[in-house]
């Protein structure tokens, strides 16, 4: 039941805000997202640590086609839901620095987006999953289109088309699986698993690409990433945050839930190819990030690099790789949110994102610089920050497949420092200049958000164990399904 409430609440709140939110939209949205957070925490409290899907709601929807409204949470889903419910209020709160026009639409769309994301993370019916998957695209499309920056129409449209093309491949794959479900056809995930397992190797191989393309475009995995930097840069900050800190996890989550156990032989056949692509992407995107002069674009490329490592870990298909991926999804969500928020604060105060025009901020805003430093440590995976447990396990997982892959993937720990520390130095260190001399230490809600981020980075770095415990049984279950 809790799962259903988690899906329904943001939808209702979102629709309410759109119709009647008016000037207080953002406060209502914040309140709604906090209630949502509270409910998800209740779910966390009630969650039993085992592989079972819990808080199940399973009602027939289109019985004749075997479609049900089937949602539930196992450990992995619960963690992804928590990521969404923790970050959504932060994203809404972070928008308090801006005065968006038509706030009722803006905040309504954010909440509807949240609904769709939670739906994606909890759906256990293939058709329902697809619906939520596509539904998630619509609010973010409008958020980018209506509140975005220069050139937004063209860029957003490309983003929309690109990801939709991917989704269509997935739809075809799902329908194909559905047709092959044993007995009365059903979109139930277990039935789809059974169908996938029964397929011949060539069919599994083809299906692999159908599903993979959809997920890989969303993440994005090299070389399907070119929509991403432009979209991140042009989207309004909160849109970028939704995209990078939550939405891209749809792709990774889907790969774990809807791809690995679905067509294990297909995965077997192509996991290496995917890993090579992903690892190429790590180095490729890191080197590009190094060459960036625009801070927001630099973060966008760094995100591609980080996601590349997560993808490589997922397709190493062992306990370490998957645990690392799940953990890193949470950490990356927090860190990339914080980085985009930091870049937003800098841009709003100095009117520039160009690294060459910045500098010296640390000497007048030491607290801000310290939080940035902590987040950066998380981003470069320093031990005792949230970036480390995930990255360590991911590389460990990759190593078990091939030490060479791990060597190249591991270059991320060097290049990550090169571009992040470079950006830090260019913004925070050195002498003040015309753009930065009037910078003020963030106050009020900005300060609160920054402190929360800093605290999360450290807390998850020191005590990651509870998260591993929650995910472990579900991961073992998925690995068993793959055998």
């Amino acid at each position: 039941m809790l799962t259903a409430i988690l899906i329904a609440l943001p939808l209702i709140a979102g629709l309410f805000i759109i119709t009647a939110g008016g000037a207080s939209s953002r406060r209502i949205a914040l309140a709604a997202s906090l209630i949502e957070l509270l409910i998800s925490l209740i779910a966390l409290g009630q969650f039993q640590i085992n592989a079972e899907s819990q808080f199940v709601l399973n009602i027939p929807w289109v019985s004749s086609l075997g479609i049900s409204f089937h949602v539930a949470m196992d450990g992995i889903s619960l963690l992804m839901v928590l990521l969404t419910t923790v970050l959504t209020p932060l994203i809404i709160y972070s928008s308090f620095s801006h005065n968006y026009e038509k706030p009722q639409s803006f905040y309504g769309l954010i909440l509807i987006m949240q609904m769709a994301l939670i739906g994606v993370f909890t759906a256990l019916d293939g058709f329902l999953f697809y619906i939520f998957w596509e539904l998630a695209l619509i609010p973010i499309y409008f958020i980018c289109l209506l509140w975005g920056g220069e050139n937004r129409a063209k860029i957003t449209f490309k983003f929309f088309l690109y990801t939709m093309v991917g989704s269509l491949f997935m739809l075809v794959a799902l329908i194909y699986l559905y047709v092959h479900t044993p007995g009365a056809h059903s979109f139930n995930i277990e039935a789809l698993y059974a169908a996938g397992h029964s397929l011949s190797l060539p069919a599994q191989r083809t299906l692999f690409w159908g599903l993979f393309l959809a997920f890989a475009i969303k993440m994005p995995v090299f070389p399907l990433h070119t929509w991403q930097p432009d979209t991140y840069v042009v989207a309004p900050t909160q849109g970028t945050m939704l995209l990078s800190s939550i939405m891209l996890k749809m792709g990774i989550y889907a790969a774990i839930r809807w791809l690995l156990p679905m067509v294990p032989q297909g995965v077997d056949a192509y996991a290496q190819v995917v890993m090579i692509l992903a690892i190429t992407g790590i180095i490729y995107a890191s080197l590009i990030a190094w060459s960036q002069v625009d801070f927001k674009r630099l973060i966008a490329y760094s995100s591609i690099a980080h996601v590349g490592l997560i993808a490589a870990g997922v397709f190493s298909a062992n306990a370490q790789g998957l645990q690392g991926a799940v953990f890193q999804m949470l950490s990356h969500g927090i860190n990339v949110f914080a980085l985009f928020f930091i870049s937003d604060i800098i841009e709003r105060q100095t009117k520039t994102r160009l690294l060459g025009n910045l500098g010296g901020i640390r000497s007048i805003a030491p607290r801000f610089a310290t939080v940035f430093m902590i987040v950066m440590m998380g981003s470069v995976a320093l031990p005792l920050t949230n970036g480390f447990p995930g990255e360590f396990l991911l590389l460990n997982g990759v190593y078990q497949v091939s030490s060479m892959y791990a060597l190249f993937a591991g270059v991320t720990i060097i290049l990550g420092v090169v571009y992040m520390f470079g950006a830090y130095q260019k913004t925070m260190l050195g002498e003040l200049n015309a753009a930065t001399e009037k910078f003020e230490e963030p106050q009020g809600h900005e300060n609160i958000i920054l402190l929360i981020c800093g605290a999360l980075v450290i807390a998850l770095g020191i005590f990651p164990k509870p998260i591993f415990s929650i995910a472990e049984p579900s991961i073992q279950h998925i690995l068993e399904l793959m055998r």
Partner: protein
Amino acid sequence: MTKLVALVPILPLLGFVIVGLGGKKLSKSLSGWIASGVVLISFVVSLILFFHLNQNSEQEVSIKLFDWIAAGRFSADLTLMVDPLTSIFLLVITGVGFLIHLYSIGYMHDDEGHNKFFSYLNLFVFFMLLLVMGSNFLVMYVGWEGVGLCSYLLIGFWHKNNSYNNAAKKAFIVNRIGDLGFLLGMFLIYVTFGSLNYSEVFSQAKFYVSDEPVLIAITLLLFVGAVGKSAQLPLYTWLPDAMAGPTPVSALIHAATMVTAGIYMVARSNILYTLAPTSLHIVALIGVITAVFAATIGLLQNDIKKVLAYSTVSQLGYMFLALGMGAYTTAVFHVVTHAFFKALLFLGAGSVIHAMGGEQDIRKMGGLKSHLPTTYLTFLIGTIAISGIPPFAGFFSKDEILAHAFAHNKIFWLLGLGGSVLTAFYMFRLLYLTFFGSFRGTHHQQQHLHESPKSITIPLIVLAALSVVGGFIGLPEAFHTKHLLKSFLSPVFADSDLRMLPAEITHATEYALMALAIIIVIVVVLLARNKYVVKGELPLQDGAPMTALPKLIAHKYYVDEIYDSFIVKPLHWIGTIFYRFMDIQVIDALVNFVGKATVWSSDRVRLIQTGKIGYYVFVMVLSVALLLLYISY
């Protein structure tokens, strides 16, 4: 006793949190004393643990704090332990560390970042303690990376200066290159032994045959980490730049923490290395080459801290030489004596720089002996100690290394002896140019020359005393006394000692070698004295014409320039090409082409449809996919 173990690192962490969060609210003296106090208490606790281990047959005291990372069969706890090896490092880290804290109270008194500085120092000590106290490789790695972070923070402490910031960034990046090796080494250990806990890894490793490829691979990968952290060829370049930080930081990095991490790691993993003689040989080779290489650079440096920095690189080379010959105790011995005299020398240099109003160029000093008598005397002791003149600390540890080298490999011995000749020369050159002759600075500087306050001179005096007597913990057996350090550490190296051929040289040979070394060093010192005191020669000014070899050396063999031109710049260039060409002109253009082609082809069939692009895409993708599926099915 186990609770005390946890106290050792937690105290400096507490200091970091209190002083760090307290910020400007705490007065300078209060934060300075808190930060120093916690380290002092840690030192006292370390002493208690040391005596406990010394008196009891117990080989190890440990405490599990909590489970840290777990996934599938992999798990790692945050468990702390103290055994004899760790105990020695604890004493050095907290003991010398405390003196450096104490010194900083005076040295950093007028700096506006005073409190921040002390919080970083505490954090540095905390991570170093974690490094040596972990009971598995992962906790060692936490400390390993943590000291890297602290060095970044402290080297770039004066963060308005971008050349300091660059030095800080460089230190972190170069360290990370090594860390990748360490990380891969850990993965291979996990894959091979199914665990990262020392006890499980080492007890299984014992049953491996010598030079099994997997052991060679593990030890070499870990060694890459050591090369980065302990500044050996080819990753030493960060250390000389690291002197950008305030001088106490240099003392901390070079003596008490950070660079000795690599030595600790190899000594800790001694059984793995003993069983991989090939790796040991490489360790020794890198060590001895670095020792000589860095010493030659030291000959022509004119910055007081740079000379000391290269001497650290060189001395670390000696330690790796010792490790590479399986003389683990000897390496630890040299860590200890080096900690005393190198901390002394850096803090002494700090006192000089303080008196000179920030000047670091020894060509602009001279004659400071009479103005800074305590600093001079203690610096002299440090110089004698590092040069290997008996009975000062450095003599015994270095002599032990050379004795092993003589028994092991005569070429190593010859190179080692050559390196110590160079060391004696550049150190006495430094001493003479700084403290002898006449003052060469400005009139303004001369008027302000003064001996440093007590908080600075007291640590100098204590360290000087340690540099005098520190060598007695490891008197050679030729003296028919007990090698205290060796017997204390023997449980840690027992398994390795069983497998190592003892380096047998007769006492007569040992005496002869000692005599030879002493005579040569004394001759060199006299030569330096003749050149810089009697003749009063001065090093060339910058830009003065030089012959090829000195020019090469004065420019540090152009290693930085080579790395920059052949690695850094090309990679940055590739990044730019990837962005401007690959990403925009190739990959994205291809995507756009596919999109446009779709629109174009849908235009052809417009008659039957409404013109919505989404629909066309849908139909196209659907048909293509169905076709594919049909074929494969």
